[in-house]
């Protein structure tokens, strides 16, 4: 076996066929994940056990198991039950894309809600008290004080999470999706040159990671105008 640099160069354009699907997966699941995360966060800090407990269980289960296993359970496992195949959710769960989005979003929801909770808890208690002492109501304090500060505190962790999500989209290839990794694996099956092809794929992922990091870096700088340098 030999190592063929030209093969890397040649295969990068071919791999880009899958980039659309990768980004599509990433975008959809971060957006849905964000919504789930907000709902979960509100449930957790609601102070009502019948809301907090389900939220905590959800977080516990999804953070405690590998995404790959979650994807397999959702994709291969759920149709074991007839009622699922007859339910309204079947059109989504029937398609591998739907399953991947469901798995990735649920995962993101669990992680991001913890990140946001960290941000909320990171807001200095003194600021709440100052708000109280000025007569601001609970929701006013949450909107005008907690939220903007928590967002800034959460950005670094959130940007890391988005990168983890990008990397997790690669697992979609295990349920027939032709995302970038799926395409790479198919090319390997034709050329029998895994080393070169996978490295080419890794290069593209690295570029995407860089773009995401950079974007968040700029956003954070904008949000941090008020922090002392």
């Amino acid at each position, binding site marked *: 076996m030999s190592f063929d640099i030209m093969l890397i160069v040649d295969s990068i354009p071919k791999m880009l066929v899958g980039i659309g699907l990768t980004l599509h997966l990433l975008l959809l699941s971060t957006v849905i994940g964000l919504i789930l995360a907000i709902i979960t966060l509100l449930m957790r800090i609601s102070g009502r056990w019948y809301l907090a407990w389900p939220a905590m269980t959800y977080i516990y289960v999804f953070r405690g198991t590998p995404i790959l296993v979650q994807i397999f359970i959702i994709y291969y496992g759920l149709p074991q039950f007839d009622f699922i195949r007859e339910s309204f959710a079947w059109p989504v769960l029937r398609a591998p894309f739907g399953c991947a989005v469901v798995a990735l979003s649920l995962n993101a929801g669990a992680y991001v809600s913890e990140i946001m909770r960290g941000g909320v808890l990171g807001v200095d208690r003194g600021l709440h008290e100052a708000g109280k002492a000025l007569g601001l109501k609970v929701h006013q304090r949450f909107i005008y004080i907690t939220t903007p500060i928590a967002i800034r505190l959460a950005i670094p962790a959130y940007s890391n999470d988005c990168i983890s999500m990008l990397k997790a989209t690669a697992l979609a290839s295990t349920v027939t999706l032709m995302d970038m990794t799926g395409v790479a694996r*198919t090319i390997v099956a034709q050329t029998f040159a895994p080393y070169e092809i996978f490295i080419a794929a890794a290069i593209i992922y690295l570029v995407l990671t860089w773009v995401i990091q950079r974007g968040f870096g700029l956003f954070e700088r904008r949000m941090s105008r008020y922090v002392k340098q």
Partner: protein
Amino acid sequence: PQTASAETLRVGTECTYHPFNFRDANGDLQGYDIDVAKAVGELIGAKIEFVCQKWDGMIPSLLANKFDLIVASMSITDKRKQKIDFSDPYRVSIGQFIAAKSKNLDLFNADGSVNQAGFEGLRVGLQRATTYDNWIQAKAPNAEIVRYDSTEALYLDLKNGRVDAIMTNPMKAYLKFLSKEDGAGFSVVGPQIEEVEYFGIGVGVGLRKGNDALLNRVNKAIQTITKDGSLETFALKHFPFSIHPKKWKGAG
């Protein structure tokens, strides 16, 4: 040349391709491929050690020296032969479509040629990097191909309606699916396909190139088990019918 007793050959196989190679509930490897590998090992006097490997990494792994032989129902094709060597075939290589009876698919014309219209937009499931993949890309390019990592998932998803049809090995499909309760509403569609151009001359043992001595010994062993009826015995262990067509001459 080598002393027989000292030699160990590592054999790559999928371990999930029932009933050709699979693991039973006791954790033991079973199946037609396994029987063939063991028989070959015995005849050439080598100890056999099995290595489980996902299908799409089978050839790369052989090339990367993860094991020495592939005995995994791998069809002998020209494309693969550019990378590795094959022994003589130890069974036929065929494919067939399977779909729900209710779909009434019309995939082939009366003369056996492909009916392109029938494939239009059809979601066909198959295993990544197989001969079926090559065949359908060439013969029915307007079908939508859905590639799986293992065959077992094919039946699950056919039943679940995620694909309209699958292309697979009919013997395996009969045993694993069509003869079972799950497969009740399904049947084969069209004839068995065995075009040598795509399916090769059959299924053989794969080896790294430049290993002619070993290749010769394997070939000799396969000839022996073909002639003495061992292959037929192996087949009948796993199938209720012979998988070797009458006209198939096998090795030699």
